[in-house]
């Protein structure tokens, strides 16, 4: 069984990663664009984790940025300030701790659903925003800085230097690929089938003997710890974390990107992030008031393009609506 659900997805993924692998060769020395691509890829991981939660389990959250920010904070707080730590070990720590926090938060927010959940996730994210913005030991509004980047040796082999932009780019690309494959495997597993079923009809899934709450909680924890991983990469790229990573508009923008790509399609998260950031970059250069046009675009998008870019591509390649 192939991990792709349709033809356009297969073509897109092959094309994207093939181009992604070779793009640094064409941008030789142009670190601005390599960094820009790394940033968008990190964002795509974040959007993908949100897309799984919103598009697949049907749980709409406006507070996902809380975990994005937490990922960065967990690393910066845990790692000793002037000592290079191991990247893989800290990846494990970040995902484990954020997963644990997601478990507790999930126990509260998943008691509710629909509109309530949207408001509660937003309020909780805002609470963690204020927690870090008001704390003196975590740097307040200015946040914390990462002075030494981690080293990446694994079993004594060390082939990535995170100070090098191109190496970091490849790490992000690899992470995105792993993230994509991970979600596709989950979607095709029996766990993923149950998740699909309970999005489609929660009552029937309950009647079949599945405990909806447990399945939702697992999906919430998985998605949140991947969002934290993206935040961790963000902290490494920019060398700082601050509360604004958790602000509501980060969550809202990610939702827009997920929808732009086509909700629940997973690979659409990559399209959504690149299209949104591309447009953002383009409009920002034309006018200071880019938000006006982005806002108008979002409204137009909601009113017209129901299945996002992924649905559009799929129709182009002659596939059925999925």
């Amino acid at each position, binding site marked *: 069984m192939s991990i792709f659900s349709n033809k356009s997805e297969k073509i897109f993924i092959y094309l994207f990663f093939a181009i992604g692998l070779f793009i640094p060769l064409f941008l030789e020395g142009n670190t601005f664009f390599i960094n820009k691509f790394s940033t968008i890829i990190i964002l795509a991981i974040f959007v993908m984790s949100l897309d799984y939660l*919103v598009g697949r389990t049907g749980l*709409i959250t*406006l507070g996902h940025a809380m975990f994005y920010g937490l990922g960065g904070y967990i690393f910066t707080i845990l790692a000793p300030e002037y000592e290079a730590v191991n990247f893989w070990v800290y990846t494990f720590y970040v995902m484990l701790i954020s997963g644990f926090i997601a478990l507790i938060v999930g126990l*509260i927010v998943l*008691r*509710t659903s*629909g*509109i*309530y959940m*949207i*408001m*509660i996730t*937003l*309020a*909780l994210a*805002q*609470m963690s925003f*204020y*927690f870090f*913005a*008001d704390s003196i030991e975590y740097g307040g509004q200015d946040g914390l800085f990462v002075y030494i980047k981690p080293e990446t040796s694994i079993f004594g082999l060390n082939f990535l230097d995170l100070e090098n932009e191109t190496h970091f780019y490849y790490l992000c690309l690899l992470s995105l690929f792993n993230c994509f494959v991970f979600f596709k495997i989950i979607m095709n597993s029996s766990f993923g089938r149950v998740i699909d079923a309970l999005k489609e009809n929660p009552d029937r899934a309950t009647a079949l003997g599945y405990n909806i709450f447990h399945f939702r909680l697992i999906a919430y924890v998985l998605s949140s710890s991947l969002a934290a991983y993206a935040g961790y990469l963000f902290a490494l790229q920019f060398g700082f974390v601050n509360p604004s990573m958790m602000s*509501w*508009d980060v969550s*809202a923008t990610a*939702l*827009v990107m997920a*929808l732009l790509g086509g*909700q629940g399609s997973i690979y659409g998260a990559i399209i959504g992030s690149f299209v949104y950031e591309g447009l953002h970059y383009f409009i920002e250069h034309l006018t200071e*008031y*880019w*938000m*006006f046009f*982005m*806002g*108008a*675009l*979002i*409204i137009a*998008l*909601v*009113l017209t393009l129901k299945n996002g870019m992924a649905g559009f591509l799929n129709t182009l390649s002659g596939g059925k609506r999925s």
Partner: protein
Amino acid sequence: MDTSLFLVQLLNGVQYGLLLFLIASGLTLVFGVMGILNLAHGSMYMIGAYLAYYFTTLTDSFLLAFIISGTIALVIGIIIERCLIIHLYKRDHLDQVLLTVGLIFVFNATQSFVWGNDPLGVEVPEILSGSIKLTDIVEYPVYRLFISLLCLVVAATMYFTINKTRLGMMIRAGESDRAMVENLGVDISKLFTIVFAIGVFLASLAGIVSAPIVSLVPGMGEHVLISCFVVVVIGGLGSIKGAFVAALIVGIADTYASVLLPQISSMSIYLLMALILLVKPQGLFKN
């Protein structure tokens, strides 16, 4: 804390709570009747405040500014409902969230285009600029009392309208069974327009009256919106009575927390919300 300071803080808390009620009641009314969560509700608060600033400087009269801004807000409400929200009635929550987030972007950009990003202020109108002596040394500004009074009048008007008038009857009916109301021959689309315009008007009204006591900064709408979410979640979504009680609780808790527990003051209302949700996941007044 001595008694007079305690009293001043109580008055501040009640005033803030009543203001929150004004905004939250609009949010909860629109949700209760139409099933729409309007995230751009906070933006209407912001627009109200900036319009009040604009027309006060233009006409030199706060009262005139009050009337003009309120009218503009009603018109904006009608336009948004007729052109955009009308497409959302058959869509899911996600589309509501995204479309209203788009509206926030548009309003924020418009605000920074027209009025810039520097903080602005409106002067307290002259008749209301005095202070009342509470004790020998403690004074309280009249304008804050005026806000509390105005909010109470609005709350009473809403209570009367919803419980005693024909429009209120339709609103209550729309809350319990939308399809049945339509079948009974009520023009539901007209009712929706009216309710949405009232909601927008309430948020803008709060913005207009609070313009003289807050500084007008970009992002003020989102801050208020999130506080309103806390109010609505605690009070129970769709319940105006719940919004009233919860707004007062939140207003007073927030004011006292900033005096008594300054280190966690901005987190306090969220902690309160989380606690209440653990006990009552549907809020205090969910019917």
